[in-house]
Structure formats: C-alpha cells, structure tokens
C-alpha cells in the first residue's frame, strides 16, 4: 500500500507575530514543530505500516527549513520525504496549497492520503478535504480511530455529540485528529538513517506543472484576500476575587445574571 502523509511545520506557540504589512506570519525566531494533528497522521500511517506493510511518503509544502520536520517524520519510520518548495508557491491560501499538494499526490501515486485535521497556526481544516476534491476521491475527516485492511478503511469520525463509523475503499483521504493516537518517538537509529541513508526530495513547480495549472498556485492562485490581521485584545480588565468557593459561585451567578446570560 502506498500512503502519503501531508504535514506542516508550525510555530510552537500561539504567540505568533504578524507582519502588519502583509498580514502573514513572521516565523523567524519561533521554535517550530510538526503540527500536532499531522503528527497523529504520521503515527496512524506507521501503525498501518506495522500491521499491513506500507510505503509511507511524507510531504510538506513550505520553506527550506521545513526539511527538519520531514527528517523527524523519517526518523519516526516514514520511508520517503518530499519538500515542495519554490518561490512560485509563496503566499498560497488553502485553495492554492491543496491544489499544489494534490499535484504532488498525483506525481507520487497513492492508495491512502492522511492529513491532519487542521494546523494550529491557521485552524481552517480546509486543506485535506480540498485535496480530496481536487483529486476526485472520497474523504473522511476528523478521524478519531482508523482500522485498515488491504482493500478498505474503516474510520470513526468525530462529531461534537456523536460519531459516525464510515467505510471507504482506496483511494481515500482521511484527516486525523491529535487524539487519534499517541505518536511514537523518533528512534536513535531512525535519526541516523534520516540523515545518512534517506533524503528529502525537493519538488518545485517544474515537477508539478503537468498536474497543477499555474493559475492555481501561490499568491496569484489564492482567491482568499487577507483584509486585516490583528491580535484580539481583552475587552475589559479582569477582576480578581480571593474568596471561598461558595462566595465565588455567588459572584459568578450575579455576573451572569448581570449580563442577562442567566
């Protein structure tokens, strides 16, 4: 089975700074991690590889420094890695990103694609499902459990108040939730292999142009326009009451009544 896992390198904090001019994130100086939902996607793919055997390619679209996120995935046990990086892809919104990733999936070939539900620096949850639409394949989002065999996949799909049990035949795309599993660590030998034995294949637009029209990539291929980005500021000052539990309950009830919530 051929599995593609899409991952994103994200800043390891909610305290990201914005470039006020462009409305995009300033990534320099912020420690980076693999997006938590994507990490669960890697683990889900590795679990399938452990039980059924599979070849896992991990794919990321991003700047050259995303190399380390891909090496981490290789060190966990993924077989191959591709970094889609080109000035032509810069400024992509979810539409352009998903178009580009779908192009890479066509280039690489796949039975199963796993993406994270959403990235902690964007929270759109759009890229995975959009990829499936571009590729014309079924997708199951919000997987909290995955059972796979050689022909089909059975996914427990999470809702706020219930879940669905959905079955799909390959090819299919699944988006993973971080609560899906406990991702394994890299192994020492895995890190050695990630640098000494394996390589991160670089894909530029030239590699993908057969699959993705130029009008679907980068800033120009992005229908989204950022009107304004800002950090929400607190509307009022907080109040600190050092009181007993019963008094605290009473204060809260009065406040809620005061705002006509109760």
């Amino acid at each position: 089975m051929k599995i593609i896992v899409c991952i994103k390198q994200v800043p390891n904090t909610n305290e990201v700074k914005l470039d006020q001019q462009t409305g995009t994130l300033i990534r320099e100086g912020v420690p980076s991690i693999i997006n938590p939902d994507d990490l669960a996607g890697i683990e889900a793919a590795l679990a399938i590889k452990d039980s059924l055997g599979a070849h896992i390619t991990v794919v990321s679209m991003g700047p050259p420094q995303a190399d380390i996120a891909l090496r981490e995935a290789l060190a966990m046990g993924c077989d191959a890695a591709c970094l889609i990086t080109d000035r032509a892809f810069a400024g992509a919104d979810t539409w352009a990103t998903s178009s580009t990733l779908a192009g890479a999936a066509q280039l690489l070939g796949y039975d199963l694609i796993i993406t994270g539900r959403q990235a902690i620096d964007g929270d759109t949850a759009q890229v995975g499902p959009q990829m499936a639409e571009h590729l014309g394949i079924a997708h199951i989002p919000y997987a909290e459990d995955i059972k796979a065999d050689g022909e089909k996949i059975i996914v427990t799909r999470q809702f706020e108040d219930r879940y669905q049990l959905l079955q799909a035949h390959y090819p299919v795309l699944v988006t993973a939730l971080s609560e899906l599993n406990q991702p394994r660590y890299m192994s020492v030998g895995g890190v050695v292999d990630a640098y000494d034995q394996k390589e991160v294949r670089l894909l530029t637009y030239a590699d993908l142009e057969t699959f993705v029209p130029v009008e679907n990539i980068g800033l120009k291929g992005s229908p989204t326009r950022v009107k304004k980005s800002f950090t929400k500021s607190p509307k009022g000052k907080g109040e600190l009451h050092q009181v007993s539990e019963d008094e605290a309950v009473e204060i809260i009830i009065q406040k809620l009544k005061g705002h006509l919530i109760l």
Partner: protein
Amino acid sequence: MDFALSKKHLLLQDLYTKFATNEVKPRAAEVDEEESFPHDTVAKLGRYGFMGIPVAKAYGGAGADNLAYAMAVEALSKVCATTGVIVSAHTSLCVAPIMENGTAEQKEKYLRKLATGEWVGAFGLTEAGAGTDAAGQQTTAVPDGDNYILNGTKLFITNADAAHVYIIIAMTDKAKGTRGCSAFIVEKDFPGFSVGKKEKKMGIRGSATCELIMRDCIVPKENLLGKEGQGFKLAMQTLDGGRVGIAAQAVGIAQGAIDITVNYVKERMQFGKRISQFQNTQFELADMQTKADAARLLCHRAAFFEDKKKPFASHAAMAKLFASEAASDITRRCLQLHGGYGYSREYAIERMMRDAKITEIYEGTSEVQKMVIASHMKVN
C-alpha cells in the same frame, strides 16, 4: 574547527530531550526513593535505540557515533542520573568491549540482544582489594577442558542485579601480574555464577549495584574476550571509553541542577525581590554555567577523538576529572541557592547533589584520572 552540532546531532538532541522529559523525569524521584531499577524505562530505552547507540546497524544498533552516545547520557542524567549510568555502564563497559574485541560469533550472539535492550550488560573489574589498584585481581580463571573455571568476588558492580551479560576480568596466570589477566563474557545463568549483596548507596540509588560471586563458575572457552593475558589492557581501554560516558553523566547532572535552580530563583521571593535579581545569584549561576559548558566541551572533545579513532585516553580522563568535580561543586552550590527547601527531599536538587558524588569515584577516581593525565604529560 566547528563547535556547532550537526543537523543530525541536533535532531538527536531533540529526541533525547523529549524522551527524557516525558519518560524518565517523571520516574526519577520514585526510582531514587524506592531504590528500584527502572526496568520499564530500560525496555523503552531499548525500543527507541538508546541501548545500542554506537553499535553498527548490522548488529541491531543505531549506528551513531560516540558523540551521539555522550549526548544521550547527558540528556538522561539531566533528569535522572540513575538512568544515565544504566545506559553508560551497559554501553561503555559491556557493549563496547564486545564490539572492539569480540569474535564474529560473540558479536552475533551478544551484541544484537544488548543493542536492542533485550539484555542489559555490566562489567566486573573491581574487587574488595582491587579498586584503584586494579592490578591486584584475586579472581582466577583456570582452564578445564572446553571451559574456564572462574572463582572470585567482584564488588560495586553497576547494573549487576538487572544484567544478563557481564564482562569479567580474572587472572589466568597470577605469576605474570597484569599480563596474566584475561577478560570473559559471562552470562547470568552460567553454573556457579550468582549476584550477591546489593549496596545501600548515597546516590544513583536505582542502579542496582551489587556483588558478583563466582564459585567454580563454568565459562565456555569461546567466551574468552580478546586473547588470554590481554584482559588488563582490555579493561583499561574499556574504562577510557567509559569515562566519556561518566563525564557526560556528570555534565548532565550539573546542567540539570542549573536548569532547575534557574527556575527556582526566578520564583523565590526574599526581601521583596525575586532572588534571581540579586547579583550574588546571577554571579553564582554564571560561574556554574561556565563550568558546565567547559565540562561539556571537554566531554565532546574526548568523544570526538574516540570517534576519529585517535588516542583519547587523556582527553577522556580530563573530561571525567573536570566534569565530575564540576558536578559536585555545581550541585552543592545550586542546593545552597535553594536554601532550606533544597535540603528537603521535596526538591530534586537534594537527589542531584547525592548523585553527583559518585562521578568522582567510579570508573576511576579523580586521583586515577590525574595519574592518567600526568602519565600522558610524561611527568614522572
């Protein structure tokens, strides 16, 4: 000349830190308090490749270098010195001599299980009358048909109670002194082998330090490690590598102490100020961090020359001498910055100060390191 770690080593450091923080640190106080060998942690260490870091992939190891190994021991020791020495004694004192001196059959039989952590390794040189004077070995090995018969008692053996394989030094020809010593690979189930009294120690209390007793212990001749008569040389070379591991352990203890102390002084209020705002606190910590960095550089230099297959005995001795004394000094001063709370078992600094002391003693005391360094300086 390049002081920066490679990308590979940086990613290894990331792995070590995550593993130590999530898997080792939460158990450290309990392992110390209950003096219990952390078998479950060792199983996980094995699964993720920590038990065979410098072992070739062909034998189930991680295929990394000694720098990567030293960095792992440092990261583990930063949060739990017991776990650090379990990996260090296993790797440097049992795995390494088999890797360096073993026959193809010995490597195939022992390295794979050791490198994956299925088996734990230990090393028996020290005896009641043979500490710093390691040449005074009383344990004997007498040929008998296809076997050697070993008799004697080894003392203060790290990992003893948990190990499956031991490198044992014994006299095959007492008349020849150190040239009459030989090394053997002994399995715990060999007839006549047993683990004796467990030591009650000041620090590294989870590491299962015991006596090893051999009474007419039958060791097959194919388990002679290296050649007959070369056991003392093998033991000394093994300890050269071991000292890189213990230096790394000491650096880890020192850095762990500094890190928790920096957090503590930023919270502790006295005279209406955080005590981190006092210049005495800042100078103390600046001095300690400088020492810890110097110790780490000496440790990495020794590992570097070991990896380059260049002579590194004096580098390893200097690293261990400086790092172990730095660890003792730093943990004592960090405890002082904690004040009364530091003396309480509620705080990890108390354990770290107890753990640091042994690094000045085992695998060659500070005085032995000075003997090694002076001999390389040709001062005699």
